[in-house]
């Protein structure tokens, strides 16, 4: 039996029945649209059955920007750039660093896509404002969250663009659920190079299929995971609730001044335990020291990006067995492959 309805990212329960229904309809429309072009092996689970023996593949990658890592800058420079501009944080995870002087006090991470907040603008503007006020601790008006004469929701609004204070959801241009769904669907097209050999390695596949930026961690990872399942004759969709989630956060090796296990400093702010979309890392005030006093790999924690390098982001693909004859298409024009 097909899925009755898409849930909202994080399995959040704050939306009305009508709002939930409208969210599902919105996603269903997107899934239909991206599944349609020939050669794709992607389906809408609210329209088509996902059998019990379908498997779920958790696809993970580091939250720190791959494009910056591949520039091979000195670590301090890399962290400074990543912390200083949310537009650099393009792995479906963004963060903001609260400091006391130069000392890191709290780092808040989010993987919550703006699509949901855009939806709230359409269906529940009071909830939208409430969520913003709750996250920022400031008075927020609807107009603060809109741009242009048509009042379109602006993900990069003033309350959600900071690098040094509260953070509500993702805002970087590539960090949205729509882009992730499109990538997963487009990656179901099998490819071959000029030599006729199959193209399956992550970075090369992204270039060949025109699937995004091969220097990111996320695009090659998602594309290759999906594409390799299709090569084994599976059809793909995303696990409900479709979304990007904060996954494993490695605190092993962190040395705190009083020996407290740093894993206890990680607090989930939004999302159910299996679908975390916002979390913070901060030492309890009672301990008398801040995150900046913690040592990691011989260095003090001086940046949120240091922590992002130890945090994984996850999307879940569902694979159902299918009976199609895999047919590979040439790489897209201009790929050089």
């Amino acid at each position, binding site marked *: 039996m097909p899925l009755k309805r898409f849930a909202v990212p994080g399995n959040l329960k704050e939306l009305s029945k009508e709002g939930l229904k409208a969210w599902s309809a919105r996603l269903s429309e997107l899934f239909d649209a991206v599944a349609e072009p020939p050669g794709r092996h992607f389906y809408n689970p609210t329209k088509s059955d996902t059998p019990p023996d379908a498997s779920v593949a958790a696809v993970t990658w580091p939250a720190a920007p791959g494009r910056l890592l591949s520039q*091979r800058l*000195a670590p301090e420079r890399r962290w400074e750039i990543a912390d200083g501009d949310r537009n650099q944080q393009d792995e479906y995870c963004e963060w903001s660093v609260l400091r006391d002087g130069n000392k890191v006090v709290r780092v808040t991470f989010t993987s919550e896509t703006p699509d949901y907040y855009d939806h709230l603008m359409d269906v529940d503007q009071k909830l939208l404002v409430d969520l913003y006020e709750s996250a920022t601790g400031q008075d927020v008006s609807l107009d603060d969250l809109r741009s242009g004469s048509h009042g379109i929701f602006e993900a990069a609004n003033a309350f959600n663009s900071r690098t040094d204070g509260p953070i509500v959801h993702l805002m970087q241009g590539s960090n949205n659920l729509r882009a992730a769904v499109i990538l997963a669907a487009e990656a179901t097209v099998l490819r071959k190079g000029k030599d006729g050999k199959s193209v399956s390695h*992550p970075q090369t596949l992204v*270039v060949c299929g025109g699937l995004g930026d*091969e220097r990111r961690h996320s695009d090659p*990872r998602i594309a290759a995971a999906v594409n*390799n399942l299709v090569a084994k004759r599976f059809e793909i969709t995303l696990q409900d609730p479709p979304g990007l989630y904060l996954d494993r956060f490695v605190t*092993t090796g962190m040395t705190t001044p009083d020996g407290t296990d740093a894993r206890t400093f990680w607090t989930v702010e939004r999302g159910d335990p299996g679908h975390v979309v916002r979390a913070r890392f901060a030492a309890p005030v009672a301990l008398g020291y801040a995150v900046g006093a913690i040592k990691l790999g*011989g260095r003090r924690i001086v940046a949120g990006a240091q922590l992002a390098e130890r945090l994984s982001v996850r999307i879940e693909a569902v694979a159902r067995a299918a009976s199609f004859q895999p047919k590979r298409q040439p790489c897209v024009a201009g790929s050089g492959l």
Partner: protein
Amino acid sequence: MAPVTAKAGDETCMVFNTIKGAPQGRVVRFVVGEDKQPREMTQAETEAELGDPFATLLLNKGVFPSTAAELLDAVDARVGANHPLGPSSHMSFVLGEGSQIPLADATPSTNAGLRFLVSRGSGPKGPDLIISTPGPDIAFVEVMAWDKKRKGFNYYRSAGPKRWAFAGNSRHALTPPTKGKGPFESHPSGNLIMKELRLPWVHWHSFEVDIFEDAFPKGDSRRKHPWFTQKLGAEICETAVVMPSITRWTEARLNQVVAANGTVTDPARVVEQIVTTPTVNLASSSRESKGAGPLDLPPGFFVDFDGLSRIGLPGPPGFSVSRAIYAKSLKTFDFRLDDGDGFVQPGDTHFAFVVPERAFEDTETLAQAVDRGLITRRLAAALLMVDFPNPVFSARRASLLKHAPKTATIKSGKSTYSDDMANAIIAAAAATPANSPEKEFVDRWNKAATLPGPLGDELEAYYDAIAKKLKTQAGFDDFVRLAESQRKRVRDQTRLVESLLLFPTTDVDDDERRAMKRDATVVLVSA
């Protein structure tokens, strides 16, 4: 009762393959260098010497598993589900030098080295039990287990079904007669080794590239084993297993050598890790060799970026080479993967340009020695900046080790050790030729009074020169020749090469030894 024996005179790690007559149900002690031959330990001896969980939970209780899966089943049976060593702390990782080669093209040798690394333990300092094995059900197992009582990792090797040899503790790596022998050939400072430590972890399963089940032959049970199907990426192994384990042992070791009155035992052993190359990590481009677009090059090939940046000197700006120049170089030098058993594939390793760089364990030792006040930033900068264009295998820098004072004292986080060593080199320099390492050190020492200062300027000039060379075919080709020379040293001077597929095979004349100069030219040097 027949005695336990091993090949006489063999002090390499291979000697464990020659153990004969090990009894079931008794630990054999074979700390090469200390034990001429393997010998049975008594129950009292094992209880006194072995304080790690493998010993305390299993061996000392008479439980002798044959395989890694049996070992962990036995641990689980004793500790229960919620124990820090229990199944919830389980992590498995997979690596193999031939793992990106399609099975259809492979020979039996291509993927013979596929192996698992499995860890247990959820403490903040890292796992307590680390296992390396070709497969969960294969009776060839290596174990490292943290000894809470005596600190350091205890090293074990299976010696046949239900037979185990204790091969030493991390501390045995540091001093004669056990230094450099047995397992400490490849673990020269007693640390856990992950030679491909940094992104993109060439040869490991990671988020950067999968190792698929078809790396194993059809019908191989490892394909469906949970250790394989639920494996984690090398990025997790780096941050959650290897780096914390290295930090843990380095911390414990330095705690042990500094006495309550501040006296430091064998401080020169710390200097050894700064000026010599006891081991290396392997780094590579983050780009696939068969992909498109420019290739970033590993900065550790050009300079000790991690060590220098920790003491306040500038790291490189990030180096890259165009795909066209790289591709031409592959043809010029006939790059190929060759497993020595008939498999030959044109091109480079999956991730391009694999080269050695300074090992994290040595950088970590330097960082902790600076933190504790044994080594000053000035001395560290002066030492690392001697022959800085050759961050590994520098004979010039290594020659300064002989001036390291044999005694040191740390009081209130300060020591005169750095000044003592600098003064010893300065005194010796007067009687050395103009181009001697000692005279170079004196220049560095004087300039290191201010950091980054003039040393920073020299580094910046060096980085500019490299960037210019990388824009030309001839310049990059020279770096390729240097890279091959460095790979040869890894083959010759370390025990890290377990497969011919670790590195590409090339037509660069590998009898030639090369080095980098400060103007980024590559020159031949005498061996």
